[in-house]
């Protein structure tokens, strides 16, 4: 793989640049040794790798501003980076020699419980927001499975989701304001503690911009009251068709669960072998349904869900009797990917979306593609949102399997789009899916999106060559997507 990070013009001035940046952030805030830089050569998408020429670790907004001003004077592009848990190559350097990592900006600035707001620096780890307010009975809703490691800044860049987004929404629904440093160093405030926007909703454009708008240094987040109670049900089905029919029926009945997760037979067997949850080995599909809210309504609602699932063909519906049983179900779900690791040397996780009612159709297509490409594919996903995560099993030592695994992934995405869905529900476009963007968007859409991008970054120095396909600017995907916790 060629070195994607450097361009020759800037490489020559690296030592001077490193010295200048060290003046701003301190000597311990600039990393230039190759061995240390290797840690930053990719994120959770490990197909293409490219270490930055320099890594900068600012501690304050002033540092970030100073660094971006220095880079702009030299015409150097940069990549913002949080914890590097992204799954689409969003912080892979592509013609951007400097990576600016916010991990040292990890202070919770203020917990304002009366207003249900928490103000954080962008390097704060997701779970720590909830941890800071949990004792008082509040939580921060977006819960990507990487929440013990991923940062709020990264969540904002990717507009991260998680299992509980069905009821509570994704990151963009919970960010009220940001402090953003533009390429060039200017610091702007967008949004604020109020729940109304003043002027254009630029904040909404920054969330999910995958780091191309600049570097978010602070954020004001909305926190929610912990629900009084919850119920977790396990419904077992003979096949995925009946399980997906149950998903539609539950939601059509006017019930919005906190989460509805589905696993198919391949995943069930892997999970059962690993965790002994008590799934019947011959089950074709299971649903994990969690509802939350007032204790007064949960028993009745759980019974309704059980009845609906049974009518849809569930062989058995079980209610987790205690916190231990509930924890075991979620462990099975959240570690399904690890369990799959026992079945094949390698696996690639895809992220696509279809309208909920098309779940049976997309699963049929996946079964067909699995046969056609002669690769096993498991399914474990956020059924309530129609957000699928097919897991393609392969062996990277066999080049033909690698080729087929890449192709089958693309075919699945194409089918999602044809069914009225999307290329990505929560992993982002990054460099991974740039080439697929034209499946979803017409040239005029992409032109307008580029214009929006340039509003924030006229010189194109903030995380260049991401999201929007550029002729010659894309990373060629040469190996399939790898393990991806959700």
């Amino acid at each position, binding site marked *: 793989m060629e070195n994607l990070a450097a361009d020759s013009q800037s490489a020559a001035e690296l030592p001077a640049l490193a010295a200048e940046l060290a003046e701003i952030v301190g000597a311990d805030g600039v990393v230039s040794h190759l061995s240390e830089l290797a840690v930053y050569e990719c994120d959770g998408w490990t197909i293409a790798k490219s270490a930055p020429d320099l890594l900068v670790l600012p501690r304050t907004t002033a540092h970030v501003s100073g660094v971006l001003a220095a880079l702009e004077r030299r015409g150097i592009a940069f990549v913002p980076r949080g914890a590097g848990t992204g799954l689409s190559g969003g912080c892979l350097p592509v013609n951007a020699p400097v990576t600016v990592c916010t991990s040292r900006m990890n202070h919770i600035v203020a917990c*304002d419980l*009366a*207003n249900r707001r928490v103000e954080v620096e962008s390097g704060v780890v997701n779970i720590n927001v909830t941890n800071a307010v949990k004792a008082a009975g509040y939580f921060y809703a977006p819960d990507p499975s990487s929440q013990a490691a991923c940062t709020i800044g990264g969540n904002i860049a*990717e*507009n991260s989701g998680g299992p509980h*987004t069905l009821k509570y929404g994704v990151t963009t*629904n919970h960010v009220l304001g940001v402090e953003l440093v533009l390429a060039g160093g*200017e*610091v*702007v*405030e967008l949004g*604020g*503690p*109020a*729940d*109304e*926007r*003043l*002027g*254009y*909703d*630029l904040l*909404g*454009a920054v969330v*999910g*911009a995958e780091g191309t708008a600049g570097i978010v240094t602070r954020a004001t987040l909305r926190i929610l*009251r912990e629900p009084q109670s919850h119920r977790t049900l396990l419904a077992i089905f003979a096949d995925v068709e009946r399980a997906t029919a149950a998903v*539609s029926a539950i939601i*059509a009945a*006017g*019930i*919005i669960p906190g989460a509805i997760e589905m696993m198919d037979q391949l995943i069930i067997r892997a999970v059962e072998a690993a965790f002994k949850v008590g799934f019947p080995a011959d089950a074709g599909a299971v649903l994990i349904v969690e509802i939350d*809210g*007032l204790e*007064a*309504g949960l028993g*009745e609602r759980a019974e309704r869900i059980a009845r609906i699932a049974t009518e849809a063909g569930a062989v058995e519906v079980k209610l987790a009797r205690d916190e231990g049983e509930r924890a075991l179900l979620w462990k099975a779900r959240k570690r399904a990917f690890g369990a799959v690791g026992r079945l094949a040397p390698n696996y690639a996780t895809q992220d696509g*979306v279809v*309208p*909920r*009612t098309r779940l049976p159709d997309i699963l049929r297509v996946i079964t067909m593609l699995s046969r056609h490409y002669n690769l096993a594919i498991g399914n474990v996903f956020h059924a309530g*949102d*129609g*957000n699928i995560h097919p897991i393609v099993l392969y062996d990277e030592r066999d080049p033909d399997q690698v080729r087929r695994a890449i192709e089958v992934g693309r075919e699945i995405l194409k089918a999602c789009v044809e069914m*009225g869905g*999307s*290329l*990505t529900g*929560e992993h982002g476009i990054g460099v991974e899916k740039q080439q697929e963007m034209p499946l979803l968007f*017409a040239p*005029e*859409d992409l032109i*307008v*999106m580029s*214009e*929006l*991008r340039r*509003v*924030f970054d*006229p010189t194109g120095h903030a995380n260049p060559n991401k999201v929007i396909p550029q002729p010659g600017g894309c990373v060629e995907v040469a190996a399939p997507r790898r393990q991806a916790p959700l």
Partner: protein
Amino acid sequence: MTDAHLDKVENAIRGLLDAEHVRRPRGREAPAARIIAEPRDSDQMAALVRQCESERTALAPLGAARTLGEIRRAPAMIGVSLARMDRIVTYEPEDMTVIAEAGMTLGALNRRLAEHGQRLPLDPSNPGATTLGALIGAAQAGPLRLSEGTARDLLIGLRFVGHEGRLVHGGGRVVKNVAGYDLMKVMTGSFGTLGIITEVAFKLRPIPEGYTIGLAPFARASDAFGAALRLYDAIPLVHVEVLSPALAARFGHPDVFLLMAAVAGSAGELEYQRRCFSGLGGAFFLDSVRAVETYEQLRDLEFAPAAIVAQLATAPAELARCVEGMGAEFRAHAASGVAQIFIGGEFDRPAQAVETLARWRGAAHAARGHLRLLAAAPALRSELDFFDQPPPGALKLMRRLKAAFDPAGIFNPGCFVGGI
């Protein structure tokens, strides 16, 4: 503006649209635009936009123009009505998503959705006269914002006609989607200044099983707000409003600050939640029919005839102090940090309006919030700034956005923040 000039503009666009759908304004359209164009579809709209760009003629979507009609200083040259683009494109009840043309009214949409026990829970006043385009263009919201979110939370896709007549789309029809830049956020609340929205896709919500409103009168505003926030801390209210005496009187409670808090759910949940009101003293509940009627009355409250009506937004716990300091009548979405504030009657001289608004703005800014004018008597409009000024950095980006999306400056110019 001479009639001859109007005739010339009118004739130019008559060739692009079906001739009978280019006309002079009627009724409440008059303060919004001089000529009304009713394109049949987005292709006609695109032709209209290209024509306006080449002639540098301003045009404004009429939905937003009607909203702005309350505050705009002069009519736009062309008001684009989407009256002929008012159909549901796709409605999949089991997906709980809908795609509709932007000229459909919220009321008509919700009547259709109710057949399946669903709704688009955005509730500005008068949904029968609010088009989906205006709903998004002006980012309108009502009491339900507390539990259901606002337009930005529910809009999952849209189409609009942009400069050069581009037909642009963002998002899609699935409830979870992070592909590409979020054009929905950019267009929401843009007041027709970036293009004309032609189609919108929403995620929907179920209509709750049971619903009731609890009412409690208070002698002091601060006590009513305090009770509202304590209640919201205990149970997941659907909405909670505090009304000042002039509005409380319309619900039969003169001379008090009236707390109105709604709860929803199954019979068991309603029973539990009603018990949580007991600490308020004097709270009473409406039966389900009266509750829905009262909600609609609350949603549709008119503040006119008022000299000025403004909307204040602060962090929720700051709202009470801020509102009290303003010394005006109000409807407060108490746990959302949003309130509509108004002064009835007339000012003796315009300077009083200017002073009042400046005082309100000062209070809003002191609470780290902002304030925008919703309506002003016509005589006052030239004297007043309708929007707060965003911070300089943000405003610079907003000007760049406007320049990028509307280089010819034809989309509803001069009505938005910073004179955009």
